[in-house]
C-alpha cells in the first residue's frame, strides 16, 4: 500500500486548488452557451421581429397588424376593449347583463381564426346555465340552458302562438290547385326569395308575386280600369283619374248619340241634357269601388266577384256611406326567430318541405309554418356522430343584432383607415 506520506510528497501542493482541464473549460463553455442562446434569440428576433413573442398565430383578419403589437396591447395590461372598439362596433348583450365581460374574454386571440370567432358554449353556459338577475323585472327567457337539447321551443311555435298576420293566404290552395298548376307551377321559390345575405326571405311583394294572377281590374263597360295595390284613398284617386282619361279618349261612352233634326248637323243630344264629365266620373267610381270593396262571399266561387281587396285583406267594415273602407294593416312578421339567426342559404341543400313539412296542407294563414326545435335537433345534436354542431353562436350572437340594430346594416363594420394603420401616422 502506498503510504499517506509518500503520496503527499509526490503531489504538487497548490495554495488554491488548481482548476483542472474541465474547470478551465468551464468559463469558456459557459460564455459560449450563453452567447449561443442569445444569438439564437437574436436570430429569432431578426426573422420574426416582435412576432417572436407571439404565443400563437393571430386571426388572419388581424395579420395585417404585423409587428405592431401595441395596436391592441398596452404595457402590462390585458388587451382593453377600447382596442377592439376602434375597429369593431361595440354591441351590448342584454340590458339584464350585470357586468359586460371584456372582448378578449370570449374572443381568444393568438390561437386561430376559428377560436377567435367560434365562441365556446361554455362561455354562454357560464351565465345561461343558471341565469340570475338582480334587475326587475326578471328576464322572461329560460333561466337554465346548458345544451341545445335543453333549448326551449321557439317562441313563435309555443303553445297558443299563431301567425298574427292580418291576411288570408292559403298555402295548400296555391301549392296544389289545378287551376294554377295548369297555367304555371307554383313552387316555394316563386314567391320566397332569400335576402342578399342569404339569411331571411325577402318580404312578399304584391306586384312581384300576386299580381300576375290577382289583377285588380274590375271588368267595366266603359273600359279597362286597374286599381293600384294601395290604400283606398289612393286607389280612389287613381281610379278617378283613369275614368277621366277614359272619358276623354272615348267621349261616345259618355255622350250617347241622338238623331239630328237638322240637315248636315250630326245627331246629338242637347248640351243641356248632356251628362257632365264629373257625373260620369262619380257614377263609375261608385261602380268600380263597389266591385273592389265587395265583401268576401265565402260561398261564391273563388275568383268570381270576390277576387279583389277582401279576398286577402280584412276591413274594419266601418264605412260611412260614401266613405272609404278601412283596410287593416297586414302585419306580416319580418322575422320569426327574434333572438336567433338563421341562414336559408346555409340550408339550401335541403328541400323547403324538409323543414316546412306542413306547408302543403296549411290552409289558414294563422298556421305558423316554422320548423320546430326538434326538427333542428335532428341534425344539430350532440348525439349524432356527424352533428351539424350545437354551438350557441350558430344561431345566437352575443352581440344583439336583432332588436337594437338595423338588420340591414352590415354585421361587421370595419374602419378601414384604422386597419391600414393610418391612425398611427
Amino acid at each position, binding site marked *: 500500500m502506498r503510504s499517506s506520506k509518500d503520496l503527499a*510528497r509526490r*503531489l504538487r501542493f497548490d495554495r488554491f*486548488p488548481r482548476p*483542472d*482541464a474541465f474547470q478551465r473549460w468551464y468559463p469558456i463553455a*459557459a460564455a459560449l452557451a*450563453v452567447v449561443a442562446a442569445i444569438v*439564437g434569440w437574436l436570430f429569432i428576433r431578426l426573422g420574426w421581429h416582435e412576432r*417572436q413573442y407571439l404565443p400563437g398565430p393571430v386571426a388572419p383578419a388581424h395579420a395585417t397588424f404585423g409587428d405592431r403589437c401595441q395596436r391592441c396591447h398596452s404595457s402590462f395590461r390585458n388587451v382593453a376593449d377600447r382596442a377592439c372598439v376602434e375597429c369593431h362596433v361595440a354591441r351590448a348583450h342584454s340590458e339584464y347583463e350585470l357586468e359586460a365581460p371584456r372582448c378578449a374574454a370570449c374572443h381568444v386571440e393568438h390561437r386561430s381564426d376559428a377560436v377567435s370567432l367560434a365562441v365556446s358554449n361554455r362561455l354562454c353556459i357560464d351565465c345561461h346555465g343558471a341565469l340570475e338577475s338582480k334587475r326587475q323585472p326578471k328576464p322572461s327567457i329560460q333561466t337554465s340552458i346548458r345544451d341545445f337539447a335543453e333549448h326551449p321551443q321557439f317562441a313563435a311555435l309555443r303553445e297558443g302562438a299563431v301567425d298574427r298576420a292580418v291576411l288570408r293566404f292559403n298555402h295548400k290552395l296555391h301549392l296544389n290547385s289545378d287551376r294554377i298548376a295548369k297555367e304555371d307551377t307554383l313552387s316555394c321559390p316563386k314567391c320566397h326569395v332569400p335576402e342578399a345575405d342569404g339569411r331571411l326571405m325577402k318580404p312578399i311583394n304584391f306586384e312581384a308575386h300576386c299580381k300576375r294572377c290577382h289583377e285588380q281590374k274590375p271588368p267595366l263597360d266603359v273600359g279597362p280600369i286597374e286599381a293600384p295595390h294601395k290604400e283606398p284613398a289612393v286607389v280612389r284617386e287613381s281610379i278617378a283619374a283613369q275614368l277621366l282619361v277614359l272619358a276623354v279618349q272615348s267621349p261616345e261612352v259618355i255622350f250617347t248619340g241622338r238623331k239630328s233634326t237638322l240637315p248636315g248637323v250630326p245627331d246629338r243630344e242637347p248640351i243641356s241634357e248632356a251628362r257632365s264629365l264629373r257625373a260620369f266620373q262619380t257614377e263609375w267610381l261608385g261602380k268600380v269601388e263597389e266591385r273592389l270593396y265587395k265583401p268576401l262571399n265565402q260561398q261564391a266561387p273563388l275568383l268570381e266577384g270576390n277576387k279583389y281587396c277582401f279576398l286577402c285583406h280584412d276591413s274594419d267594415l266601418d264605412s260611412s256611406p260614401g266613405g272609404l273602407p278601412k283596410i287593416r294593416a297586414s302585419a306580416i312578421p319580418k322575422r320569426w326567430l327574434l333572438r336567433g339567426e338563421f341562414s336559408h342559404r346555409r340550408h339550401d341543400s335541403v328541400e323547403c318541405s324538409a323543414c316546412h313539412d306542413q306547408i302543403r296542407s296549411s290552409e289558414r294563414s294563422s298556421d305558423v309554418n316554422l320548423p320546430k326545435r326538434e326538427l333542428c335537433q335532428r341534425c344539430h345534436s350532440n348525439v349524432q356522430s356527424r352533428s351539424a354542431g350545437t354551438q350557441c353562436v350558430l344561431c345566437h350572437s352575443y352581440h344583439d343584432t336583432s332588436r337594437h340594430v338595423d338588420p340591414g346594416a352590415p354585421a361587421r363594420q370595419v374602419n378601414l383607415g384604422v386597419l391600414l394603420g393610418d391612425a398611427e401616422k
Partner: protein
Amino acid sequence: MLLTSDHTRWAVATSLAAVVAAAAYTVYATSTPYGPSGGSWPGLCFGIAGTACMLSAVFLSARKKFLLWRIGSAQRWMKLHVWLGLLAIPLILFHAGFSLGGPLTTWLMVMFAIVSLSGIYGLAVQQVIPRVMTLRVPMETPRSQIDHLSASLIVDAYEQVASVTGHLPEAAGEQAALAEEEKRNALRPGDWKQVRRLIPAMSPAEGSDTLRNFYLDTIRPYLHRKAFKPGVPPDFARLRFDAPGEWRAPVDRLAEICEESRQLAVQARLHSWLHSWLLMHAPLSFALLVLVAVHVYMALHY
C-alpha cells in the same frame, strides 16, 4: 449524487407533486374551452411553479459560490436541485400545454429540453462512474494533479533507469527536470515534500543495454504519449526474464510507473465523462434563465 435510500422521501414528495399537478392539469385541460394555454391563470400557475423550481435549482450554483455560508449543507441543496429540477419538467410541459407556441417559446423549450436531458444524463452518470473509477483506478489522484504527476512519472522512470545505466544523453528533458527539482528543493525549508532521488550510476552496468533500449524504445514513448490515451502499457515480461536479479527493484518500479500512467489516463477519461455534461447543463441553464426572464417580461408586457 448517488441516489440512495436517503432520497426516498424526496422521490415520493416529487412524484406526489407531479401527480397532483398532472391531475390539476387534466381537469384544467378538459374544462377550458380553447384548450390549455400558458396565459390562462392555471397555465400561469404552472409556469410560476415551474420557474420557481428552475430558480431553486439554479440556486445550487449560487450556493457553490458561497461555500462558507451556513445556509443549509450543500448536500441538501443538491437534493433540492435534483428533485425540483425533475419536477420542473412536467410543470413546464403543463404550462406550455404540450405545444411549442411561438418562436421564442419554441427556442425556450429546446433549451429547456437540453438542460433537463443533460441533467438527467449527469445524474445517471453519477450513479455509475464513481464506482467504475474506484474499481478501475486504484491509483487515483485529484484531476488537477494528473498533469503534474504524469510529468513526475516521466522523471521517476528516468531516475530508475539512470540508476542502472548512468545518465542517458537521449533524455535531456528528464535531466533538466531533475536539476530544476533540485534547485527548487534547495529553497524549501527542511526536507518537506522532498523525494529522495536515486544516484545515477557512474558508468553503465554490465549488459544494461537491454534496459536502456527498452526504456528508450518503449517506456519513454509510452510515458510521453498524449493524456487521455490509456494505450497498451509496455510488456515487461521479456525484460524481467533478461534482467539480472539486482535490477529487480528498478524494473518493478518501472512497471509500476507505467501502470500508474495508464491508470491516470483512464482516470482523466472517466473524469471527463463524469463532468463534461455539466459544460452544457450549467451554462445553458443560465442562458435559459435569461431568456425566461425575457419571456416573462414580454408575456406580462403583452
